[in-house]
């Protein structure tokens, strides 16, 4: 089959594709490979995994929907988008939960496995027939296809092989570069050997031919950006957790100390695979506390380390984070947020750890808190975090989340440099006249003696201490220590610039967000603005300390509200002083003494631009009513 056969193909700016199945049918692998091929061709891509609600869901259950969504476009894609345009499903039952989630619209093309039509069990045949009717009534464009049957010609285990067959179908439908796809398959299965690679490539080719024969009318082109648009830049394709791993290496860190926890662990998996190349080591500790303790030990010894975790891990590490604050130990803590509290929603996204990151420790424990808004920022902010940690002798918490962790996107490859690395271990003599906490009273900053430095000997302690690191319980020492640690945040804040408003600098409504919601919020704001509404948005990257100038920005809007993925009371149910707000809204109120509204939900999935659009319309209507 020739590559790039596009005669008669429908030209599109973007399309959203889903593959849904029972878990274990390889939908995610097929989708990731499809996304990579699209990205390599120069398209904007965002892929996100659809994770079943249960760990071992029974086959053909609505709660078992497992799979992947791929949003591909000509331009850069920053989020998962709204309803899918085309979905491939291995059974009809898994579609119900997707439909309930609003994943499809009228006209969404459904390519459905039809073997259930002839299932020996009459109930299954009935379920299938009933579903087809329902789907059609709902306006889905149903294409019943004998996918497994076609796979059987090439494999005796179609349950495992059909994912590559579907990849072939999609590559044909979207006119992808087929040789590139074959090479990608070879790459995916490189550890499994030649035989497996060839078998999967065969299935892939069969899938291409199958689509051409059975659904020739589904033929699209989403043109990639031109070479000129791409500016000759090289791009990386990774998820946010891999980006964190790359950041660790690009920061020149040598140690990641972790304990397995979803959805953070894949960052460590990635590092475990490649870290030794750059001379680094992943320590899997016996528990979350030991993981951070080990990292703190290495940092104290002059090798600033990183620990990667998620909500429950942050809860367990809290006492150690307090120690790092108190004793001024540089440390990078990555919190890949999931739903909470407690074990919560391990695989699902939430922005619920913001207040815990800022205020989780007892006493006054000022630390730097950053939030990555994009996958690219996951990489760069780890580098930034290491530098800040060392410059300010402070733990830095980097917040990412399950959405960034599992989303895959192309982004510019950084031009890495040895300048980004931690400086070589300083083992020069220490001036014995200089105490271990030689605080500059204006900035709170002090140089740090490192074991091995002659005459630098000091005893680090988590107890209140003087500048000599001597345990001190007196009033002045404790007050002074707290002041010096707090002053570091003040002096860091002074180096920050006010954030950029997306849209006009004044108007009716300002949406404030943080973290992974950036793409969805801006896309929604752009849509509302295209309708002529005076809405802008602002996205915060620094949460502690906050970027300056927020009050001045807020004052130029009639209303300011945050949009977040964490819990807040519905104002229709609980209003006024008793209403519990979203986490950033609390912070901004305290920070600016202004009336900050919020809208937030804890559905466990990433926010979509369509939903945000509705929320904004609603709030604008309120504004007009109250005007």
């Amino acid at each position, binding site marked *: 089959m020739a590559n790039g056969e596009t005669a008669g193909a429908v030209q599109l700016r973007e399309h959203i594709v889903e593959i849904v199945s029972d878990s274990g049918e390889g939908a995610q692998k097929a989708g990731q490979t499809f996304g990579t091929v699209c990205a390599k061709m120069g398209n904007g891509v965002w892929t996100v995994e659809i994770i079943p609600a249960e760990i071992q869901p029974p086959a053909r259950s609505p709660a078992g929907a497992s799979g992947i969504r791929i949003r591909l476009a000509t331009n850069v894609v920053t989020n998962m988008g709204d309803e899918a345009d085309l979905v491939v499903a291995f059974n009809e039952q898994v579609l119900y939960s997707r439909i309930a989630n609003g994943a499809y619209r009228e006209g969404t093309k459904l390519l459905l496995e039809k073997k259930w039509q002839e299932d020996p069990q009459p109930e299954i045949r009935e379920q299938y027939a009933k579903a087809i009717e329902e789907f059609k009534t709902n306006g889905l464009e149903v294409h019943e296809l004998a996918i497994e049957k076609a796979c059987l010609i090439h494999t005796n285990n179609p349950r495992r092989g059909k994912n590559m067959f579907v990849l072939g179908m999609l590559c044909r439908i979207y006119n992808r570069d087929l040789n590139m796809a074959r090479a990608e398959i070879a790459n995916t299965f490189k550890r499994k050997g030649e035989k497996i690679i060839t078998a999967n490539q065969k299935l892939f080719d069969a899938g291409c031919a199958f689509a051409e024969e059975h659904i020739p009318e589904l033929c699209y082109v989403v043109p990639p950006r031109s070479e000129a648009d791409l500016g000759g830049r*090289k791009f990386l394709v990774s998820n946010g957790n891999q980006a964190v791993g790359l950041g660790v290496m690009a920061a020149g860190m040598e140690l990641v100390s972790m304990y397995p926890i979803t959805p953070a662990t894949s960052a460590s998996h990635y590092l475990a695979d490649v870290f030794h190349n750059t001379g680094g080591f992943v320590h899997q*500790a016996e528990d979350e506390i*030991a993981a951070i*303790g080990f990292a703190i030990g290495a940092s104290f010894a002059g090798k600033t380390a990183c620990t990667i975790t998620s909500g429950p891990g942050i809860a367990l590490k809290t006492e150690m984070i307090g120690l790092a604050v108190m004793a001024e130990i540089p440390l990078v803590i990555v919190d890949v947020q999931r739903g909470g509290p407690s074990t919560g929603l391990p695989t699902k996204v939430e922005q619920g750890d913001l207040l815990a990151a800022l205020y989780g420790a007892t006493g006054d424990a000022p630390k730097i808190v950053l939030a990555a808004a994009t996958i690219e920022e996951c990489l760069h902010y780890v580098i930034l975090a290491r530098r800040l940690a060392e410059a300010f002798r402070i733990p830095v918490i980097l917040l990412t989340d399950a959405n960034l962790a599992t989303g895959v996107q*192309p982004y510019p490859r950084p031009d890495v440099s040895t300048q980004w690395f931690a400086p070589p271990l300083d083992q020069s003599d220490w001036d014995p006249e200089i105490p271990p906490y030689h605080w500059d009273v204006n900035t709170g900053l002090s140089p740090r003696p490192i074991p091995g430095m002659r005459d630098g000997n000091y*005893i680090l302690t988590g107890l209140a201490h003087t500048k000599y690191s001597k345990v001190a319980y007196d009033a002045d020492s404790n007050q002074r220590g707290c002041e010096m640690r707090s002053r570091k945040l003040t002096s860091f804040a002074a180096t920050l610039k006010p954030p950029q408003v997306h849209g006009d600098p004044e108007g009716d409504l300002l949406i404030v967000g943080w973290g992974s919601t950036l793409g969805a919020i801006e896309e929604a704001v752009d849509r509302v603005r295209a309708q002529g509404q005076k809405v802008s948005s602002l996205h915060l990257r620094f949460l502690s300390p906050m970027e300056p100038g927020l009050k001045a920005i807020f004052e130029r809007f009639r209303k300011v509200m945050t949009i977040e993925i964490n819990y807040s009371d519905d104002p229709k149910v609980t209003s006024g002083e008793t209403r519990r707000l979203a986490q950033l809204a609390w912070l901004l109120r305290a920070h600016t003494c202004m009336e900050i509204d919020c809208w937030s939900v804890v559905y466990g999935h990433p926010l979509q631009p369509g939903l945000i659009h509705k929320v904004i319309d609603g709030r604008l209507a309120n504004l007009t009513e109250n005007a």
Partner: protein
Amino acid sequence: MFGLKADWSLEVFERYFTLGDYAGGEARWCPGCGDHGVLTAIQKLLRDEQVAPESTVAVSGIGCSSRLPHYLGTYGFHSLHGRALPVACGVKSRRPELDVWVATGDGDCFSIGAGHWIYAIRYNMDMVVMIFDNAIYGLTKAQTSPTSPKGMKTNTHPFGAFVEPHNPLTVTLGITNVSFVAQVVDWNPPLVYEALKAAHRHKGTSFVRIIQRCPVYAEPYIKELQSDPNRFLLLTHDQGLPVNTSVTRQFPNQLVHNPRDLPAAWNVAHDNSAIPLGLLYHNPDAPCYEDSSSIGMDMTPETRLQALNRVLDTLTI
């Protein structure tokens, strides 16, 4: 003695360290506390072994004995309750050349830090771990500890502790990769010194349980132990701790025990009729975790950068 300077050139210097070089702040333990003598033994040993104070790190948790780093003239890390071991392991992970000493107690190590105890033994990183076991919580004033004997009256068990005490020796000797287990009493300084010396020379985690006097909160328990030398069993062997007459005279009950024999060590540890003193177990060949955790430390920034670019290549489109 030599050291590396920041520009990687070699600095050659001759230094001789005296006891004063290892002196830190004035020890604030109660008079008569067993910790004083152990501190002296450590300082003497560091002097005798001529370990540079700046390359020594004393790590501790929280408790009376965890104040020890403050009284040493080395680097120190007075960490959190129960967490000395993970911190110490972290120090060692990428700085294997540092001489690491851990001071922890029965509450710190066997109770709140019990998980780390098991794993530190398994990692077997080269450090001396001293457990100051006074069978009581001293700093927080007389609560039952994991090694408080059953029936011991404490503030949390005023009518007597309910359960049999933990046997730290059987537990430690049961952990995979255990490499050095010794037990001493603080009131026999020559034995303390020899145990620490052997522990320091051993490459691996040396677990030294020091049965320690707390005359303030555990006086009856200690008095009873001290008054009856027959409660103890001194382990002797030419591969064990060297014992002089001041030791043999104090502990007439003796057993020739080969410290390379793990099943024999289990038997000694399990035997509740006597408290063993000396070297229970020693395996000089157990693998040390820092041999894995310190990989790639010698890479130059340039080679690191090249490697990083190769990693980036694999994700580049």
